[in-house]
């Protein structure tokens, strides 16, 4: 921090965020040096960061307690279900594990899972990064368009796309056009990439806002670099961390998807690990099959671990550079390129969110499947059917549970982020992600084995499952926000005379609050849309909305299922508004949006 700053806290915040430009200014002559400045300022090398306060008296005890607590949390939320599953998998011994892994279809399913998730990651992250670069100066409302597909619950996404773009679907009936290869790997990759793009976009877009210092780009340009060279040598290297972090989340999300490969892959006989696990569970109640299911679920964890662990270690090495933040430049004049981007974004939002959503609305409104979706066939009977029985109460319960998860997950994530420094950072980040990699059905089994004796059928056991599964979304955004706090910020505040409470309240919490709000919004949406875990974990008096939906799906109530899915989008719209609010806050200097 520059020493001669006036000792006022508000100014300190600005000072903290403005500390780096002088460092960059000294290195404007060569682009290579710029890149180094952009990526290499990790805390170990930055003077006076982590080490000194750690050694301070009093901090040690709290740190030890915190570390013990975080480890206990990881034990409770990740290790308990994983070890429970591992013990089942071990029932069959090495032969059982070998048999499960060499069972017909298992290797192919594993290969399909990795191939699909890999392709989806490349596509979604490339497109998300491109859009983030192209729209960084656009208003938040415009940028939220790109998050549109997240509105549609994943469990109806496959059906919505096939009814929108499949043979005899909406576009086929209106224009004679279908998406070729929709039923098969290509379609699965397309839909998952369309759905994964917003995740990548949110991560990269935020990283761009916070990390790509226009001063660095301007310096590069004034040093003689062309636009492309500046992008290649300055902007993209600075974006490495958010891009890699986005890739990790998109990969795990795509690998774990069930509903989309189920609907779109079945006609092509194309199975992934989640669909194989589902059919194994459905078809056989034998203990041997169940052992096999757990082996496959753990294989998914291992697959994700293999990809993620080196990734997180690498990220940990790249990440903790406090980056300067600069208020966004004033909106530039619209160019032809900008108009093309506008058209592209609208096209994407319409294609990946608008039309599938429209088919969902029409299905919910139309009396029966196959009837023309015209007013004469419209009815509210599907909503009535969906809401017969205890659906209203179940909706309240699901809202409450999702809210609880949305509040707790960022707090738990913050604890890990606060602790995760140095060599612990990578492994902790990976550990928090592991439960997300377990298919919901298997995770629910692990949770019942761990806690069912005491919490069977309670709301608490469902909450534990939500926290375990979505902790990663509470952790990574908060971690990213903490990363961007300039080193020594609280110390500077303390030196200026602020008490510890004031220091935290005025310089640490405001930027964290934005990341935590974003994390909370995502966790709320994911928990609210989750269909598998609570339908295995519920008990008397804890039936969630997912149970109501599953009952309708089982009855073959296509219209009622669509109606219930639409109900699920409403609170998510509220959550999206929260994100919009967070984004607006983020545009204030000194705070940041989301970039894990």
């Amino acid at each position, binding site marked *: 921090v520059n020493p001669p700053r006036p000792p006022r806290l508000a100014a300190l915040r600005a000072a903290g965020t403005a500390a780096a430009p002088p460092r960059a200014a000294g290195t404007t002559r060569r682009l290579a040096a710029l890149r180094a400045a952009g990526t290499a300022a990790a805390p170990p090398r930055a003077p006076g*960061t982590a080490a000194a*306060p750690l050694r301070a008296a009093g*901090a040690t005890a*709290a740190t030890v*307690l*915190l570390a013990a*607590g*975080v480890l206990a949390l990881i034990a*409770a*939320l990740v290790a308990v279900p994983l070890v429970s599953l591992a013990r*089942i998998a071990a029932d069959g011994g090495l032969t059982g594990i070998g048999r499960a892994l060499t069972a*017909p*279809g298992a290797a*192919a399913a594993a290969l399909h899972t990795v191939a699909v998730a890999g392709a989806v990651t490349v596509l979604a992250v490339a497109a998300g990064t491109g859009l983030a670069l192209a729209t960084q100066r656009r208003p938040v409302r415009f940028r939220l368009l790109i998050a549109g597909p997240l509105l549609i619950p994943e469990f109806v996404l496959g059906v919505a796309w096939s009814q929108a773009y499949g*043979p005899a679907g909406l576009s086929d009936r209106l224009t004679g056009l279908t998406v070729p290869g929709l039923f098969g790997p290509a379609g699965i990759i397309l839909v998952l990439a369309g759905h994964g793009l917003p995740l990548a976009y949110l991560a990269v877009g935020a990283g761009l806002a916070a990390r790509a210092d226009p001063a660095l780009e301007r310096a590069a340009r004034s040093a003689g670099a062309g636009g492309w060279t500046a992008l290649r040598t300055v902007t993209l290297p600075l974006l490495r961390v958010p891009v890699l972090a986005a890739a990790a989340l998109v990969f795990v999300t795509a690998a774990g998807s069930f509903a989309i490969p189920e609907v779109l892959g*079945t006609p*092509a*006989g194309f199975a992934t690990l989640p669909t194989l696990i589902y*059919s194994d*569970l*459905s*078809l*056989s*109640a*034998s*203990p041997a*099959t*169940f052992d096999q299911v757990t082996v496959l679920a753990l294989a998914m964890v291992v697959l994700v671990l293999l990809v993620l662990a080196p990734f997180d270690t690498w990220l940990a090495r790249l990440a903790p550079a406090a980056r300067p933040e600069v208020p966004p430049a004033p909106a530039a004049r619209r160019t032809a390129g900008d108009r093309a981007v506008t058209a592209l974004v609208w096209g994407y939002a319409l294609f990946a969110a608008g039309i599938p959503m429209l088919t969902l609305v029409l299905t919910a409104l139309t009396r*029966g*499947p*196959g*009837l023309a979706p015209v007013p004469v*066939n419209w009815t509210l009977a599907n909503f009535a059917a969906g809401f017969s029985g205890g659906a209203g109460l179940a909706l309240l319960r699901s809202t409450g549970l999702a809210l609880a998860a949305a509040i*707790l997950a960022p*707090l*738990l994530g913050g*604890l890990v982020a*606060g*602790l995760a420094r140095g060599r612990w950072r990578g492994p902790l980040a990976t550990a928090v992600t592991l439960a997300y990699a377990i298919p919901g059905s298997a995770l629910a089994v692990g949770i*019942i*084995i761990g*806690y*069912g*004796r*005491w*919490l069977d059928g309670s709301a608490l056991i469902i909450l534990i499952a939500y926290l375990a599964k979505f902790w990663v979304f509470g952790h990574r955004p908060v971690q990213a926000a*903490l990363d961007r706090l300039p*080193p020594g*910020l*609280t110390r500077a505040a303390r030196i200026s005379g602020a008490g510890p409470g004031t220091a*935290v309240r005025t310089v*640490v919490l405001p930027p964290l609050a934005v990341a935590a709000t974003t994390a909370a919004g995502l966790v709320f949406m994911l928990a609210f849309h989750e269909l*598998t875990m609570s*339908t*295995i974990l519920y008990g008397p008096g804890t039936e969630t909305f997912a149970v109501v939906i*599953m*009952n309708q799906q*089982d*009855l*073959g109530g296509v219209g009622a299922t669509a109606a219930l899915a639409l109900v699920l989008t409403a609170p998510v719209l509220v959550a999206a508004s929260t994100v919009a609010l967070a984004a607006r806050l983020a545009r204030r200097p000194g705070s940041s949006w989301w970039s894990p």
Partner: protein
Amino acid sequence: MRHFRAFAPAAVLLLAGVLGVTACGSASPSSSPAAGGPVGGAPAGPAGQLTLYTSVTQNTVTAVLDGFSRLNPGIKVTVFRATTGQLNARIAADRRSGGLRADVIWGTDPLSMESYAEQGLFRPWPLPGLTGVPSADKTTYFWGTRELYLVIVARKGLTPMPRAWADLASPAYRGKVALPDPAAAGSAFAALGYFATAPGFGMGFYRTLKVNGAVQVSTIPEVVTDVAEGRYQLGITLDSEVRAAVGQGSPVVLDWPADGAIALYSPIAQTVTATGQAGRAAQALLRYVLSAPGQAAIGKTGWQPVLPGISGPPRPAGATEVHPAWTALFGRQDQILRQYQAIFGP
């Protein structure tokens, strides 16, 4: 850590809270009422308690339990209803965390029920004196409660309509037939189980279907939706699904094959954990489901009651049914499925 020094105490408090919540369960098992008594059997009280695990559709479960509760106001029934796969997961998890928590299991097809029986989860059928259930629909451990029929669903106006199952493989319907994925549900598997072992069909039937462009779709309800929307013209699905779609005005018709719909029965059984009062409550439920009012409730929700003489949904005059050779199929699902997937796999 640098920012955490200041609010570490608060963080530690939060941690303690969350962990306390998860740990209090593990630290004080005696606080749970269920832990002391027999597992699954609820603590003995003046009002008996009964836990039912089922994969039967919600409206049928509700209709049957409403009638049961009117006759047995003293018995409080707790229901866990889920798909067969989720039920399997729940039961497997129960068994590894203190034992099965169900007193009665009411399944959708005999295959998963047979697997539970083999694992020793069921008592031998406790009410051998009940009459009327056909011998094809019972084993030592479980009895059928209703019949589900696999039939042909056709798009309205299709000509010619197929007459028998074998017609689905006719070149007239090239690329127009949808089959439910037999790996996704026991009811869909019943069709595969029947054809694989029935004379005149065998796996050769599926090879012909495949050559003829038949397509596998994910679930039994999806077959009806796909045919209604015109993606396919014909499909194999459950009779109740077709009737429901017809009732909503969908452009589909139920085509009962002349050589017989494939019947599967939905069995019920008392578990070994239902002892004492819970056992008596379980038997009261079994007795009610197989009584005239219980069967009538099943019939009213769109399924064929298993007892003769109780009216179910309408069936065409002269409609016949065929039965998969269940005992020959028990334990052979994997093998048959593998042969099928060699044809309909990637």
